[in-house]
């Protein structure tokens, strides 16, 4: 039998593509491009298998080689890093030239021997494939090579176990989970609750107005960190809930003198100043200042009287 014209055309279309793609494996700078070239070669090989009366092997070629093996290669490329390229330092002297010479010599010998040998006239698989190609292959595998198939199955299981063992990593530090993190936070004395929202208890609920605690002190942490670093935080003086001023006014009124604003200001003294330091360096959190402490302030007004 001789190959049909269609098969000849297919061969002469696919063979140059395959050789070019294989050369791409040799010359590609990036490993991903090399992997794509190998995938091209393997899919073309599947076409050639089907053309050569081996449809079962053609399907297996696509499923096993391009579908599983090359995808595994791509996964490992992603693990190792796509940018991992060749080092250009030659550790072995003249290895490049010897390698080229060896490969070229091998190619010349193989092509020369295989091309010049005389073969018996081709028989073709029409007779062997009569019950169907997969059926014929299955008869041979499960008839003559059952033990070989069992050994191959054991080999596959061993390979899977070996891959698990080889890529297993021993844990050097104990696993840190949520309970351990919580215990560490409590031990460090850090803030346990979520940060308060800006504007809570203040007269304004914009993002840049710090919240006030029940004593009327501004809570620095309630303003978003970005605004604090940019220095876009609003002053607390104008939005502060004037609990202290109202308390002083009430005390003065209780004493029988309906206080004017000026008198209240005089009684308050420096207390009403902007409690925050004038220029907090960016990034540092300024804690509430001591001079607006309501308890201390009220005792002072008591003694001043």
């Amino acid at each position, binding site marked *: 039998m001789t190959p049909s014209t269609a098969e000849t055309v297919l*061969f002469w279309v696919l063979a140059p593509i395959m050789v070019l793609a294989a050369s791409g494996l040799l010359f590609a700078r990036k490993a991903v491009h090399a992997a794509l070239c190998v995938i091209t070669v393997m899919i073309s090989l599947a076409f050639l298998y089907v053309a050569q009366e*081996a449809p079962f092997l053609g399907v297996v070629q696509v499923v096993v080689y391009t579908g599983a093996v090359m995808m595994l290669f791509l996964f490992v490329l992603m693990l190792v890093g796509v940018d991992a390229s060749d080092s250009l330092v030659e550790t072995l002297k003249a290895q490049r030239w010897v390698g080229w010479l*060896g490969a070229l010599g091998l*190619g010349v010998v193989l*092509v020369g021997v295989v091309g010049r040998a005389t*073969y018996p006239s081709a028989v073709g698989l029409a007779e062997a494939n009569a019950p169907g190609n997969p059926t014929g292959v299955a008869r041979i595998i499960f008839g003559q090579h059952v033990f070989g198939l069992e050994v191959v199955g054991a080999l596959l299981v061993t390979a899977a176990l070996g891959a698990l063992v*080889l890529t297993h*990593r021993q844990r050097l530090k104990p696993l840190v989970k949520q309970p351990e993190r919580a215990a560490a936070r409590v031990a460090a004395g850090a803030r346990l609750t979520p940060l308060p929202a800006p504007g809570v208890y203040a007269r304004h609920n914009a993002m840049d107005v710090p919240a006030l605690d029940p004593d009327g002190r501004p809570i620095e942490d309630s303003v978003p960190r970005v605004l604090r670093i940019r220095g876009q935080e609003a002053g607390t003086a104008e939005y502060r809930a004037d609990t202290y001023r109202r308390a002083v006014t009430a005390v003065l009124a209780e004493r029988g003198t309906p206080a004017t604003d000026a008198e209240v200001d005089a009684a308050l003294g420096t207390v009403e100043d902007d409690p925050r330091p004038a220029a907090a360096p960016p990034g540092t959190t300024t804690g509430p200042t001591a001079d607006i402490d309501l308890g201390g302030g009220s005792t002072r007004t008591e003694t001043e009287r």
Partner: protein
Amino acid sequence: MTLTNYLVLSGILFSIGAATVLLRRNAIIVFMGVELMLNATNLALVTFSRLHGDLTGQVMAFFVMVVAAAEVVVGLAIIVSIFRTRKSASVDDINLLKS
């Protein structure tokens, strides 16, 4: 065209795979060269199967595929573990036992 063309193509692919193994330094690309050589052998096996009218050649190619799959799994696991310890996939860097 005769079936010899397939065998010549198989020989060319095999030599390119061998050249890849000899010349490239990235371990993964070297491994792809090995795969290319196995595939070239499979093409020769399928062609000889057709030449002799005997399906045993295809069965051999099938076994080669299965063993190649197992080999890829172990080989890539070795490459990954070497990359973890050496932070490199270059075959030239694997000279830990030297001197």
